[in-house]
């Protein structure tokens, strides 16, 4: 074998190895989805699972309605706080992004994305739970909002910055004030990207467990008062999975399946919205 063909063979071998490693990287995804579906299907296929709440071990017909409703409440309240603030912050970064202050905001947002969520839980415990002497859904949703905020800020900035300057200039040339140009002209044009970012933030918040441990805390019954302890799906998975009871472990898998379907569903919807944005941008 001459030198050239040996080099080609080496190159080919490395290429194949890299494809194999890529396949290896996707195996965990398949396994997690498969086991969650396989073990969660049985408990999650009963209607009772969605209309009943916790029942003691041995009593049939237990469900996770309280956790599903709780997650929706917690994430809903967190969205009301994080999304408007995040969108305005993102518009600031996109429209006035050259200033030194904008640089600090950008850096702080990027650092905040990587901040351990358990530390955010401790922080909210110290400022909202300890002074009021009780766990509450409201404090849990503030913790989730802190985690959502930087995601919304950065994705809004990204999609607003993509809007061609011509649109901005035509608005200003017509004599519109800056706020109307930004909020009524640029923001609607960037809407698909902004919605994608908000949905990604919602998906992330829905799956968070650690910041809820010392804030929302969890509850065995359905609780609609945001000022009291509230259960969430990730908390259910965590608490039930660590018990020695087979029936609760099964429910944990069922709750995990509901959670995965919810989170991946939101993710796929956000992808679809983003593709529309790209398609629209192509027409412009």
């Amino acid at each position, binding site marked *: 074998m001459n030198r050239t063909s040996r080099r080609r063979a080496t*190159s080919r071998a*490395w290429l194949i*190895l890299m494809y194999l490693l*890529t396949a290896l*990287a*996707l195996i*965990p*995804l398949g*396994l*997690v989805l498969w*086991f*969650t579906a396989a073990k969660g299907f049985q408990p999650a296929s009963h209607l009772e699972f969605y209309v009943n709440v916790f029942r003691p071990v041995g009593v049939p017909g237990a469900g996770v309605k309280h956790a599903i409703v709780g997650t929706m409440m917690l994430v809903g309240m967190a969205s009301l706080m994080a999304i408007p*603030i995040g969108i*305005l*912050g993102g*518009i*600031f*970064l996109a*429209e*006035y992004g050259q200033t030194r202050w904008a640089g*600090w*905001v950008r*850096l*702080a947002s990027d*650092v*905040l994305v*990587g*901040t*351990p969520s*358990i*530390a*955010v839980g*401790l*922080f909210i*415990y*110290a*400022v909202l739970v300890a002074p009021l002497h009780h766990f509450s859904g409201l404090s849990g949703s503030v913790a989730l909002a*802190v985690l959502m*905020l930087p995601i919304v800020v950065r994705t809004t900035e990204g999609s607003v910055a993509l809007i061609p300057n011509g649109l901005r200039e035509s608005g200003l040339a017509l*004599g519109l004030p800056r*706020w109307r140009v*930004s909020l009524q002209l640029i923001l609607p044009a960037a809407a698909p990207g902004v919605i994608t970012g908000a949905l990604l933030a919602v*998906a992330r918040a829905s*799956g*968070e*467990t*650690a910041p809820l*441990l*010392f804030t929302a805390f969890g509850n065995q019954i359905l609780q609609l008062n945001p000022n009291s302890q509230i259960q969430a799906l*990730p908390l259910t*998975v*965590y608490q039930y*999975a660590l018990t020695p009871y087979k029936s609760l472990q099964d429910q944990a*898998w069922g709750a*995990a399946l509901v*959670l*995965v379907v919810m*989170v*991946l569903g939101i*993710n796929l919807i956000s992808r679809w919205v983003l593709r529309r944005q790209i398609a629209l941008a192509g027409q412009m």
Partner: protein
Amino acid sequence: MATAAETKPAGITTTRRVPDRFRTVTALVAAAAPIVLIVIVLVLLQGSELSIRKFGLGFLVSRSWNPPIESFGALPAIFGTVASAFISIAIALPVGVAVAVILAEPSHPSLRGVVGTGIELLAAIPSVVYGIWTLYVLSPWSYEHLEVPISNRAGFIGWLSDPATRSLFNASLVLAVMILPTLTAISRDVIRAVPRGLKENSFALGATWWETTWHVILPAARAGIFGATILALGRALGETIAVTMAIGNRYWIPPSVFQPAYTLASVIANEFTEASGALHQSALVELGLVLILVTLVVNLVALLLVRSVSRETRITA
């Protein structure tokens, strides 16, 4: 009076610069992120005051964690956190770079789409789902097919002996899966940012695909891949729930990677709501403070590295 106003067309009067109130308002709203970050650190600092006063710097090197006699030290938790993060990087880095190289290739766009989506979905799966999967599937499998065979053959090396189902190694395995998307996404962007000319020149000189990748592209992207690695390290250090469900939660410095251990985040998750007294709670908050300060530094270094790379490539491209 009226004529003066009529002869002056509207709009001319506004040539003087009006203060941009919209800018002021959005700049203030945008302050939320930096303010929250600073307040988190200050609040944790205040919360750990009791423990800092009692133990001082000795807290960081003491191995004791004994609530009944109020003796607390962070060393085993720091060790477990750092060890699990580094082992997970060692496992994930080769795979992550390989996936990034494949994703950055211009060939087979449909295949890249599938792989890219798969990796992003890997990032979307909640931590607690990885946790339950590790607890009931990955750990038992890893114990039987990785830990036991390895320790049977290499158990004479102390830190590869005594396999257990819940272990530092199994926690690192699931961490490796969880940080893979971070590692891959940023490495792919950095590899893509390598100027095309470099690659084309290399091919023109007769280099093979592998020679080009190994000797030209990866060295050019080195700093960015390093930044991506450090960013992934930051994620691994702060991960809580999946690790808590996998690592076995034993407060000691394990003699073997196949033995249970503990991490900063896991201790807080397990003990905080049941803290036995003010000092115990304060010590737990101090663990949180150590964790957030370490991840802050790690994230800052990583961000600066990744940013400097993308700026450089923008200039050279």
